[in-house]
């Protein structure tokens, strides 16, 4: 979710340094307003008194300073601006960003800013837990949940759950227990820390953090399986963390633990996780149902998605349930229905807003981590801190190896040693651990020590592990993600294989994976979809929906890149041309189509576009006439010309081919032949086309560059 901005190519070399200078100046300025507030007060006070006391003529104050009025929003805006400029700055310096992950750089910036503020004499702001949990974390999680790749997730859900639940439990108890043992050693001078304290600390520091994992893994483009394993684990272990944290906090206050308490703890775990998921699912269905009726108010569609998800998060936090799981469940549940209902533009808006907010949040989190490090009161104890770091590493490695040994007995595709290494190495800790530590009440005498240790672990994992994971991945030749869009072939063959596997499972009498998936999908189709999807679209098979979206995307891309002018053509219309004369659609209808397309696509190559888009508007008049084996031109640059001359397989087609050179130059008369035979089908298609493209919006719509979409492809 880190924007991959292309490097600014400056016209002259000095330009880079001037931007950097600007960034540094702003950095300095950002620290000042916090200071300025102190100095402005007296000024304002006297001015005010001047105005009220002096009755003699005083000139009307043309300009005045009232910082207090705008203080809070001003500072917030300035911090965010600083964060974004930093991000911008990193990508100007080319070498650095390829070696050091962005998260490290941001923490360093935070350290610098924090140090600067301290030097001035002000108190640097600390990452407030409330701010973190209520404002900064939800966008990142929603972005992750909404775009969660469902197929790899459900294929590996067993493995992910084992790592998340059992792995985190193991980590918490191992680290807590070992630290307690460490504290018992006389020379260390930490005898004051009880077992419960240590276990509490263990539970805080043991959870893998989704923000850190995302930040690092996003840049190394590792293969899908490993990505979903580590990432899924980081998301699902929230329930465990919440339960353990609350549990140990309660036990600490009470002081004693009974068996009943432990039993209740286990029950609590199930309540927290399943309850969170339930809350998310309810809100997800609500959002899907609402989106069914938004066809007349398209502008506010994205807001429903955001607000329902945020409400799901807040509602579950209200009941001490797992907010992260609620958010993920909400995003996953609502996505298929919402996407079937909303317009294309709303979909793009949602995608971009989510990416934008999560990016800003992430940046702010890391900068604040740096600042908080400088700010927070620290208590350093070599043994404890170093012990924590070492124990975290050791427990993670042992946990992964042990669990993989058990898991591999049940997996079809086993996890290799390389996979295990990456999973273990990718267990990064981050801001959630810090915030939980910060939330500890002051009744803990060792609170500062804990915070210091947590920060050290975070720094270690983010800096050391984050920086070295990329060269290690290359060294070990771990499989990388294959960067390409899902093709129609894959979609068809995957569905084909689903049916095949289900059939074979039935022959074997085996109620396996595919059986249940099919049952769920059938239930979804018969009962759920008709309530949640607007209009007639709920009958549309997924394959068709996929194909339609793909065609639309490609059409837009083609128009933008301007490739349509020369090629395209008429091969599309050629497909509709039959040897016999065909009834044409009336001029009026053709004009209407042209008008719709023109107004929506705002492109003077629309005539060509029509030819392309009309492809799925087309319903030829006579279906039983033999189709010419016409081959459509490949829509990739460079291929178009070469593909044209081949393929026609009937003599009729050959004669039509001779028409090509003539048609190529006629932009105006493309003649998309829309046949009016099947009105119902046309209506449906009109509806779908209109739905995709229509939106009240600014007149000069900039069609988003579809290349950016590539990055956001889930």
């Amino acid at each position, binding site marked *: 979710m880190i924007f991959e901005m292309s490097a600014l190519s400056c016209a002259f070399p000095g330009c880079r340094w001037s931007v950097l200078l600007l960034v540094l100046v702003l950095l300095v300025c950002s620290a000042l307003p916090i200071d300025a507030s102190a100095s402005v007060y007296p000024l304002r006070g006297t001015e005010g008194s001047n105005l009220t006391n002096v009755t003699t003529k005083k000139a009307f104050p043309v300009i005045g300073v009232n910082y207090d009025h705008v203080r809070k929003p001003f500072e917030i805006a300035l911090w965010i601006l600083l964060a974004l400029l930093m991000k911008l700055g990193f990508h100007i310096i080319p070498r650095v960003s390829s070696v050091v992950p962005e998260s490290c750089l941001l923490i360093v910036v935070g350290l610098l800013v924090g140090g600067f503020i301290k030097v001035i004499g002000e108190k640097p702001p600390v990452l407030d837990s409330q701010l973190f949990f209520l404002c900064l974390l939800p966008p990142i999680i929603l972005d992750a949940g909404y775009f969660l790749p469902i197929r790899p997730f459900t*294929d590996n859900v067993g493995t992910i759950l084992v790592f998340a639940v059992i792995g985190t439990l193991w980590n918490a108890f191992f680290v807590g227990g070992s630290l307690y043992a460490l504290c018992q050693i006389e020379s260390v001078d930490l005898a004051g820390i009880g077992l419960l304290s240590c276990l509490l600390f263990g539970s805080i520091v043991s959870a893998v953090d989704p923000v850190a994992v995302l930040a690092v893994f996003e840049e190394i483009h590792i293969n899908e*399986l490993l990505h979903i394993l580590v990432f899924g684990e980081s998301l699902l272990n929230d329930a465990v963390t919440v339960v353990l944290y609350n549990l140990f906090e309660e036990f600490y206050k009470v002081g004693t633990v009974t068996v009943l308490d432990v039993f209740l703890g286990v029950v609590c775990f199930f309540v927290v996780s399943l309850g969170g998921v339930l809350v998310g699912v309810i809100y997800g269905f609500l959002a899907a149902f609402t989106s069914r009726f938004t066809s007349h108010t398209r502008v506010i569609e994205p807001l429903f998605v955001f607000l329902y998800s945020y409400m799901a998060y807040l509602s579950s936090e209200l009941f001490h349930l797992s907010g992260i799981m609620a958010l993920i469940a909400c995003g996953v549940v609502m996505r298929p229905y919402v996407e079937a209902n909303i317009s294309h533009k709303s979909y793009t808006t949602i995608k971009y807003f989510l990416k934008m907010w999560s990016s800003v949040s992430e940046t702010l989190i890391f900068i604040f981590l740096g600042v908080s490090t400088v700010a927070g009161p620290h208590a350093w104890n070599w043994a404890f801190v170093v012990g924590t770091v070492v124990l975290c590493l050791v427990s993670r490695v042992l946990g992964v190896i042990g669990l993989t040994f058990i898991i591999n007995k*049940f997996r*079809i*595709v*086993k996890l290799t040693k390389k996979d295990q290494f990456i999973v273990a190495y990718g267990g990064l800790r981050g801001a959630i651990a810090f915030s939980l530590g910060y939330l500890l009440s002051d009744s803990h005498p060792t609170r500062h020590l804990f915070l210091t240790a947590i920060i050290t672990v975070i720094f270690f994992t983010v800096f050391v592990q984050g920086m070295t994971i990329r060269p290690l991945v290359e060294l070990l030749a771990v499989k990388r993600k*294959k960067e*390409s869009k899902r*093709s*129609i*072939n*894959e979609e*068809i*063959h*995957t*569905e*084909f*294989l689903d*049916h*095949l*596997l*289900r*059939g*074979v*499972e*039935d*022959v*074997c*009498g*085996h109620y*396996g*994976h595919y*059986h249940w998936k099919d049952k769920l999908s059938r239930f979804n189709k018969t009962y759920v979809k008709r309530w949640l999807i607007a209009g007639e679209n709920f*009958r*549309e*098979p997924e*394959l*068709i929906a996929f*194909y339609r979206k793909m065609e639309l995307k490609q059409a837009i891309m083609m128009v933008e890149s301007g490739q349509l002018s020369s090629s395209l053509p008429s091969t599309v219309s050629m*497909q509709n041309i039959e040897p016999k004369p065909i009834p044409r659609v009336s001029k009026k209808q053709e004009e209407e189509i042209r008008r719709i397309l023109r107004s929506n696509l705002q492109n003077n190559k629309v005539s060509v576009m029509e030819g392309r888009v009309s*492809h*799925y508007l*087309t*319903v*030829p008049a006579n*279906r039983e006439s033999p*189709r010419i*084996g016409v*081959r*459509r031109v*490949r829509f990739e640059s460079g291929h178009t010309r070469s593909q044209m001359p*081949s*393929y026609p*397989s009937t003599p009729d087609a050959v004669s039509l081919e001779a028409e090509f050179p003539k048609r190529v130059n006629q932009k105006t008369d493309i003649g998309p032949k829309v046949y009016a035979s*099947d009105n119902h*089908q046309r209506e449906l298609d009109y509806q779908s086309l209109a739905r995709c493209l229509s939106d009240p919006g600014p007149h000069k719509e900039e069609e988003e560059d579809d290349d950016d979409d590539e990055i956001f492809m889930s």
Partner: protein
Amino acid sequence: MGSRASTLLREEEIEEIKKETGFSHSQITRLYSRFTSLDKGENGTLSREDFQRIPELAINPLGDRIINAFFPEGLDREDQVNFRGFMRTLAHFRPIEDNEKNKDPTASEPLNSRTNKLLFAFRLYDLDRDDKISRDELLQVLRMMVGVNISDEQLGSIADRTIQEADQNGDNSISFNEFIKVLEKVDVEQKMSIRFLH
């Protein structure tokens, strides 16, 4: 098996099947009990009707083709498949094990190798066995999967697009090699494997 009682499965048979397909002893016995439960005629072989009696297969769009895949060559209605043949077909869906990857390269490829799995799937598309998936064959499969609500033209354009994407030698159909290439990103080893519990 002839007239032998169908409930007996001799040890030598089990060994032979094990060698040929790679299933374990317990898996073979379990599948044998399934085989006999399907075999209503109790003659040690399965006919097409026996398969068609399985309720879920009837609603599976590919049901007929899957049944045909069990019967080796020829669409003779009298065809019967014995346990050996049954296992041979099912062997394609056995998960690939790590130690098999290091096997002797001169030995013939095991039935559940990636290529053989893909070949099995390919044969389900390619009914006329000409080693190519033609546009019509593709259309038939699409029609079965998508149902009756979609017009022929839409399906036709999808089929055209599919062939266009996959076809590299320009013969307007998908050959086996092109099929393999298109599916190279799909994790076939996982997708085409059934967990036969030990």
